[in-house]
């Protein structure tokens, strides 16, 4: 299995112990984080759209130097959850706390001001705009009334270089970058602007193996710098090596909330793949008899295999 030079979990074992090293690195508005209150905490949060219950009774927290992974299949409520945390939507029930105080965000801008930055999978950037304009979009550096373009280009280049992205020209449209690079630009942008909490929406979903590895590496880097990361994904093989906590969603409800010590990668994979559901399906098929039964046996075999030998796009060779 091909591994990027720096293995994603290089920093894993140190997480939590080297907290002071990078703590408070990027956050300008010295709000007390010494109290140990989690950066972001949802308590029994729910969301209804009219009669549709998109999400109910969700508990989630992420602290500095932590990666909380939110796992779930399509339609599990992951996007709704992000939108609540990002300030696009308000929860219709429950409490949303930032650093211990309840908040009611009415726009993403307010969430940003509290250091909660979201990097979306597909709508992270404006493809036709140059890299540096994207980087500073919404946070332009100004000299009087006009933008300080020279300074912005330089800062953008330096910041990307620090992330290991060596762009020849920050003036090129960001749409000409690869998917992984675009994600990394978006992540480094959030870090640069003092995000305390990064919400990453399926950052690896559209990426190949190598590029996923690059993104996972930046997740680790962000954590090392003292950020809290909420990593949304449907791939347990990406989640397990970087995550400290795992929240599993299914049909708008939590089906599990684990610390890393409470769950193995195989269990996580099994839960994600809906092992129980598959098993039930195989029983149903079997009772139909005939060719259905054959399919049922195959399913059963797959269920017993789950998590043990499933081929994966993971960059994680030895997590256990």
């Amino acid at each position, binding site marked *: 299995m091909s591994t*990027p*030079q720096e293995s994603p979990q290089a920093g894993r074992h140190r997480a939590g112990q080297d907290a002071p090293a990078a703590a408070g690195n990027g956050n300008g508005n010295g709000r007390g984080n010494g109290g140990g209150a989690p950066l972001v905490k949802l308590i029994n949060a729910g969301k209804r759209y009219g009669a549709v219950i998109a999400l109910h009774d969700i508990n989630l927290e992420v602290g500095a130097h932590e990666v909380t992974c939110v796992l779930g299949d399509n339609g599990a409520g992951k996007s709704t959850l992000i939108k609540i945390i*990002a300030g*696009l939507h308000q929860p219709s029930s429950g409490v949303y706390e930032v650093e211990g105080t309840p908040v009611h965000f009415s*726009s*993403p*801008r307010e969430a*940003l001001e509290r250091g909660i930055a*979201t990097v*979306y999978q597909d*709508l*992270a*950037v*404006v*493809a*036709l*705009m140059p890299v540096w*304009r994207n980087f*500073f*979009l*919404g*946070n*332009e550096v*100004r000299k009087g*009334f*006009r*933008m300080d*373009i020279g300074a912005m280009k330089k800062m953008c280049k330096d910041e990307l*270089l620090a992330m*290991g*992205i*060596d762009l*020849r020209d920050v003036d*090129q449209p960001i749409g*000409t*970058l*690869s998917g*992984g*690079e675009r994600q990394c630009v978006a992540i480094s942008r959030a870090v640069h602007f003092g995000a305390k909490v990064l919400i990453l929406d399926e950052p690896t979903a559209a990426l190949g193996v190598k*590029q996923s590895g*690059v993104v996972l590496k930046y997740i680790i880097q962000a954590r090392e710098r003292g950020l809290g990361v909420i990593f949304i994904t449907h791939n347990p093989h990406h989640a397990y090596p970087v995550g400290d906590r795992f929240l599993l969603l299914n049909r708008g409800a939590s089906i599990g909330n684990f610390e890393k010590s409470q769950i193995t990668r195989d269990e996580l994979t099994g839960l994600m793949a809906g092992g129980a559901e598959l098993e039930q399906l195989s029983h149903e098929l079997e009772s139909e008899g005939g060719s259905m039964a054959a399919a049922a046996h195959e399913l059963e075999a797959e269920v017993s295999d789950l998590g043990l030998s499933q081929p994966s796009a993971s960059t994680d060779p030895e997590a256990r």
Partner: protein
Amino acid sequence: MAQTTEAPVAPPPRADERVGRKSPLARLLARPEAGAIAGAIIIYIFFFIIAPPFRNASSFSSVLYVTSTYGLMATPVALLMIGGEFDLSAGVAVTSSALCASLFSYEFTTNAWVGVLVALVLSLAIGFINGWIVVKTGIPSFLVTLGMFFMLQGINIALTQTITNQVSSPDISTLQGFNSARQVFSASWTVGGVNIRTSVIWWIVFVIIATWILLRTRIGNWIFSVGGNAQAARAVGVPVGKVKIGLFMAVGFMAWFTGMHTLFLFNTIQSGQGIGNEFVYIIAAVVGGCLLTGGYGSAVGAAIGALIFGMVNQGIVYAGWNPDWFQFFVGALLLGAILLNTYIRRRAEASI
């Protein structure tokens, strides 16, 4: 192309993720104005050859004048298009503004400047309403402003008839403040035998301001972003709704300015005027390289688009052709420009 001089830094070689270089020519061609500049040169040469009067400096000043009347409006229309929206009411909104100013100050016998200010408020309000409906409802601006277009067209003619019993507004040249307003909006003076109108100066000033806003200010960044990807812009905190409403109001502002220019030039306004001009503005912007889908374009391009219009408009006259050919040219230009732009953009993208 220059190599970057930095020594390769720590990260592993990921050449496979890299984007290659563009040649300087491809860069030039990739600029939004490229097609328009080429078109303008071709059309200038064309009329230069077939229409001898076109070669005079004085004819070129009248080309510039006609250009400015289109260009004043094409500028904000281009910004709006970069911001991802249309305004089909832009043509009649000019007339509405001029009618409002002249009827108000005439009927209430006020200083001409009072009417001018009332018209400004009206024009900004029309822009605001267009923008507000588009932003609040998410209905395509094409439909919203189409509705506004017909409403304004109807109200222009109906109200003028009701108030004056005529199809045009009364002559306001006797009103107080008329002369000073004319000095601002529609003065002209002769330099070295060439007649120059203030509208040309104003047009150039507004193009420079618009370009500066687009490329050098935060607002410009926001305009590109709301047209290119409104959701991404919103997600990083760009006030998408405000930017769009502001753009519609900028169109309103320039409709007011253009209306005032026409009013104080002719003293009176035909109530049916302006219909069809909205397309000229949009075509000028498209010819100038603005993408219909938003997020790409330039104010300079729109200015060159307007210049192409001005040259064709006057060139046909100087060539002694029937002016009806103008419409044909407008259509042919639009089609040609779109084909050329698409071709150039494909070439530029392919040579990345």
